[in-house]
């Protein structure tokens, strides 16, 4: 039994419908929203700002702190208990590592840049949606940033290599699934997030990274447009 058709009719290298908007949380220094189909992430950036407790301060540069959290009603099955989990802590960490390479925090010693990612709706690909939203929010916050970061999940469902796995594919019951979230620096093409669950060959990995790069180029164009659109609004008196 091979995987011939995706539930929603997408081609194997198509992503779900993407929506992106910048400047959605007024109190934040920078904010954005990013959707892959039914997976929806908000990101808010506060900083650089004062960092307590003192012992966390780095006198040479600012630190980046990421917090990924799913809202209690974000799962299509049971309610998610608030307070985070080991999974969300790990995602917070890899998100931070995915974003740090583009930032220069030397100008902000002893301070912190806080990134909060919250998801009202999750259906696979939540960490990648979160990273896409967070990158826009960091740019919106005016931080020194040498590149944008774009992220997507690629993988293998049975014998097919696919882009942007949805919920049904992640949990595909009829065979093997490999899920590979990737994040890429848009202009340099360097990889800042790479995780993999499943079994693939070395060659398949190379293919997957190529697919991810192509998809991330499209995501980058959408992130760019969302950032520029914020300033297109003409106010009428």
């Amino acid at each position, binding site marked *: 039994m091979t995987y011939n058709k995706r539930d929603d009719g997408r081609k194997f290298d198509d992503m779900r419908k993407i929506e992106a908007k910048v400047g959605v949380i007024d109190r934040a*220094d920078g904010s954005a929203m990013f959707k892959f189909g039914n997976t929806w992430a908000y990101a808010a950036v506060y900083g650089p700002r*004062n960092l307590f407790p003192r012992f966390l301060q780095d006198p040479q540069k600012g630190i980046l702190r990421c917090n990924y959290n799913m809202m209690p009603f974000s799962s299509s099955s049971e309610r998610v208990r608030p307070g985070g989990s080991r999974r969300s802590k790990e995602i917070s960490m890899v998100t931070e590592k995915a974003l740090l390479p583009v930032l220069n925090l030397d100008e902000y*010693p002893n301070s912190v840049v806080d990134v909060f990612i919250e998801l009202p709706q999750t259906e696979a690909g939540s960490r990648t949606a979160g990273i896409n939203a967070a990158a826009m929010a960091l740019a919106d916050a005016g931080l020194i940033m040498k590149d944008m970061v774009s992220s997507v999940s690629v993988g293998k469902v049975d014998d097919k290599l696919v882009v942007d796995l949805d919920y049904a594919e992640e949990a595909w019951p009829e065979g093997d699934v490999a899920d590979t979230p990737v994040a890429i620096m848009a202009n340099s093409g360097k990889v800042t997030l790479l995780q993999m669950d499943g079994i693939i060959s070395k060659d398949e990995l190379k293919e997957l990274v190529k697919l991810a790069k192509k998809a991330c180029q499209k995501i980058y164009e959408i992130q760019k447009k969302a*950032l520029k659109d914020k300033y297109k609004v003409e106010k009428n*008196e």
Partner: protein
Amino acid sequence: MSKILVKDKDIVVPGEILAEGMDNLPGTGTYREGENIHAGQLGLVSINGRAIKLISLSGVYQPKVDDTIIGKVIDVTMFGWRLDTNCAYSAMLSMKEASSDFIPKGADLNKYFSLGEYVVCKITQVTSQKLVDISAKGPGLHKLRGGRVIKVNTNKVPRIIGKQGSMVSMIKQATGCKIIVGQNGLVWLEGEPKSELITVRAIKKIEDESHLSGLTDRVKVFLEKETGTKLESNSR
């Protein structure tokens, strides 16, 4: 051949290629990588001959020496006061720098500046660790009484002040409000309730529309409509 890929006043995102080739000069907010000049942040392109720089549209205030700022007293110590400066770094105001009057040792410092009060002051020192010293001694530097303080985007302060203060003067003229603009994004204003409100809305308008052309005229029209005063034309 060198080539500039963007126009003046374009909005660019981090990493975007602004120019190709070695002939152009990377200014603030940009960096060179190989043969290209890239955007080093979200910003507004400003081209001056062969130099390309970016003007920040957003971002928290970074303290600079000689900036005039509005700080809020958050701590009264034995030797001075600590002020919140609306950024990641608070500032120290020593007894020596508080006033042109002599403050004797052991004086009750609350009598000069107390918790929660706002002070217009000047930044005298910023160390590499971003320890900030300020002074309230000097012309135009003093405690603020009455009125209200609003927060604005620190990057818009130059537009709110205008060339040689022309924009803020126009608002003062139309509304009759006293206005002091801090480089750190705090603005103090005082006047009749209705006038204060118009001032706040005028400043918000400048913040929202600063990157669009014809700002001064639009603000002028807004002020004339709201206050019913006829403003003199500004010579550019």
